[in-house]
């Protein structure tokens, strides 16, 4: 498909190409940001700084991957940010001593990791059941789950932070492989796998079809409910993994871990060209969205701008990105 897409696009103005390819649309912005960063701060281009950017983006990247899958299938999942907190909290609670706020069960950390991921799967199954089987509204269901899961996270340790976790539990989040943090490798690899799957696997294409027109997908023999349900499960599983990596990096699980992360997640996905209406956008574009936000944060931090302004900048970036989309005739914006 790619070869003919290129040959077809040579007939078209550059604008159409940019609109069509979510990734390309952000390339000029990324280049501009890198120039700005290099000019304003000499430390910006150092490899160590780039590793910092990547590491700080890796957790967000996993969440964006998860949310992108759900958005492409035409649904919504707000509860991901609470899964980021609850899943590793349960894992940490199982391995921690009672004196530190844990359960005192002192489970094997590897089992605890498995339980952490399993918590993600269970949350996804519940979301999928409520939304696809009971046909409840995805926004309300996942908003309720967001609140409920956060409440459980707080209640489990009475709001305490669990620290002093076993090395095995924090390994993935803190290890460095070949000079690059393991979490970056993991996020990168999962994005590569996810991108290839969505582009070249029949179920990946089916998810695009479901998001584009669920009725047409059903009439073409795609099992819409089942597949969307699986997407919810995968998204929650990825969030649990993101939570594990985050706890590993920080060496602790706070009861507020992941709080408010869902806004940044949506921001990155939308900036990266994932349509909130479903069926449109590429994971490569979503990566570009994550990188863009990561670089902006980095530049602002290096320039020692107060962190309050970072939030304001994010909001402004989303609005500007959407306006540009509309002005360039982008079909990706909401209609």
């Amino acid at each position: 498909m790619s070869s003919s897409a290129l040959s077809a696009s040579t007939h078209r103005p550059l604008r159409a190409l940019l609109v069509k390819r979510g990734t390309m649309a952000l390339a000029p912005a990324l280049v501009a940001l890198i120039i700005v960063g290099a000019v304003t701060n000499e430390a910006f281009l150092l490899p160590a700084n780039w590793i910092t950017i990547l590491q700080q983006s890796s957790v967000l990247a996993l969440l964006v991957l998860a949310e992108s899958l759900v958005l492409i299938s035409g649904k919504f999942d707000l509860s991901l940010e609470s899964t980021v907190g609850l899943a590793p909290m349960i894992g940490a609670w199982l391995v921690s001593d009672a004196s530190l706020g844990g359960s005192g069960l002192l489970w094997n950390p590897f089992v605890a990791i498995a339980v952490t991921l399993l918590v993600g799967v269970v949350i996804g199954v519940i979301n999928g059941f409520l939304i696809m089987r009971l046909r409840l509204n995805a926004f309300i269901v996942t908003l309720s789950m967001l609140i409920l899961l956060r409440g459980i996270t707080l209640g489990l340790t009475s709001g305490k932070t669990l620290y002093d976790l076993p090395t095995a539990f924090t390994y993935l989040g803190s290890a460095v492989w070949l000079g690059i943090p393991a979490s970056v490798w993991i996020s990168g690899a999962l994005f590569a796998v996810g991108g290839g799957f969505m582009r070249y696997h029949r179920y990946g294409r089916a998810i695009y079809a479901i998001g584009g027109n669920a009725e047409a997908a059903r009439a073409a023999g795609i099992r819409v409910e089942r597949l969307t349900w699986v997407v919810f499960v995968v998204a929650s599983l990825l969030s649990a993994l993101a939570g594990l990596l985050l706890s590993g990096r920080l060496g602790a699980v706070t009861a507020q871990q992941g709080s408010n992360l869902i806004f940044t997640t949506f921001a990155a996905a939308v900036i990266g060209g994932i349509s909130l209406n479903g069926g449109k956008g590429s994971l490569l574009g979503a990566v570009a969205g994550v990188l863009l936000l990561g670089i902006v944060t980095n530049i602002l931090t290096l320039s020692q701008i107060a962190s309050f302004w970072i939030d304001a900048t994010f909001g402004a970036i989303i609005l500007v990105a959407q306006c540009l989309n509309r002005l360039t005739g982008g079909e990706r914006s909401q209609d």
Partner: protein
Amino acid sequence: MRSDSETPIPAKSAVLARNLWKRFGATQALSGVGLELQPGEIRALVGRNGAGKSTLVSLLTGLVKPDEGEIIFQGEAAPRTSEPDLWQRRVACVYQHPKIVPALSCAENLFLSECMRRRRLVSWRAMRREAHEVLEKWGVDIDVDAAAGTLSVGQRQLLEIARALMRGSRFVILDEPTARLNGKEVEHLFAHLQTLQANGVAILFISHYLEEIFSLCQTVTVLRDGQKTLDSALQDLTPEMLIEAMVGPGTRVSGASSKAAASPGSGPESTPIQARAAPPDSPADPAQLEVRDLTCRGLFEDVSFEAHAGECVGITGLVGSGKEALGEALAGLKTWNAGSVHLGTHSLPGGDVAFHNRAGIGFVPQDRHREGLVLGLSVAENATLAVTDCLGSLGFVRPSARERLATRMIQLLGIKVASPAEPVSALSGGNQQKVVLARALAREPRVLVLIQPTSGVDVASKETLLSCVRQVAAAGAAVVMISDELDELELCDRVLVIRSGHLTREFERPFSPRELVAEIEGVTL
């Protein structure tokens, strides 16, 4: 006209439309149609699908501006289409699906636009009192406090009519009001309409049920292909003349007298299903598709028929007859309550599109935008959506394999497209429909089920689509064509008529369109 004698002497027509023309893109929807209703007249508007009825209604209700021609209400020229408020005070149309707000009370629905216009604050007491008065005046027995959503379909229609009359309109259009009513509700509606008639309200009544038209209306206008073919008092007409005006003179299918057609006046189920006279396959051949006593409660019942290899079977009936549901059941979109569907020796489960598709059923759904296409995806992806399992190993789709298959389908169906990667949304309606057919044919089905495959498609694409269907049948597949277009039914070897969920009669080719339409409409000639 009968109503002439009843109207006051300075007879100003309730509505007078002259020489209306309307073109949408390539289709000339209306060509010089005129219409006149006197106060207290009930006129029927009749025509087959696509004859221009809905265009005429849109023009008469001010939704669409005519290219040419004029509309006059009670001697005054019609307002401009930019002023829906003024139109609402002159004419109202009650559609099949009532336009009310279900969660609000009847009183609120009555005054919805009024209280927006007149008052700053809503006086609930005054509104309820006035609503009560309005309903009483027009003889509608409904509780003003009931939520409109809890009313029956018939009551909602009466509420809508009352709302129109309250706004001052003395001309009401009813668009197939009886399609969703039971016998008693129809009687009630008709009694109500006759009261309105006595009060000088003019009513344009659209229906497919000719018997109703003869019992209710005094005059009739018949449209065919955007032109008026008949305008007369009903008492001078027979059902046969009406159908002739709808279908057109002469015999469009060669040799119009067939065995089935030679038994006029026969009731339902009078023509036994006969063996084909000279089938290409020997009668001993098992049927490609065998449907036995298939029942989908509330949609169709005890439907049995067969389709042989190389045969094209048409299924036709009115809107709501269950023909679309039958097609969807065959495709696996619906489950059934009883009966069986066999494809060769395989038994099909129902409710599993993927299984049916793999077993050998190709399906062209009714509405290409709703069920046929994913508009954001490319032509290649849409064409291969149902066969992604055959385009690579381990479930991966090889782009080259997809492109090869898509290119073959594009050539086969003559789809006009720059490249298979082009988004399907960029195509014309006809070419989009070809993509839907390509999707249905991608697995080389043994049975092809089509629902209204050429609706809203230009003439050239229609020809291509139908000739392709013919080729598929000639290549040995069985075709089930669910349609109410004569052009589509003409290519069928047999046509089964379904009415209220039951197969009533079978026509063998060549059949007479008039006989067929009479059977569809449920009148005896």
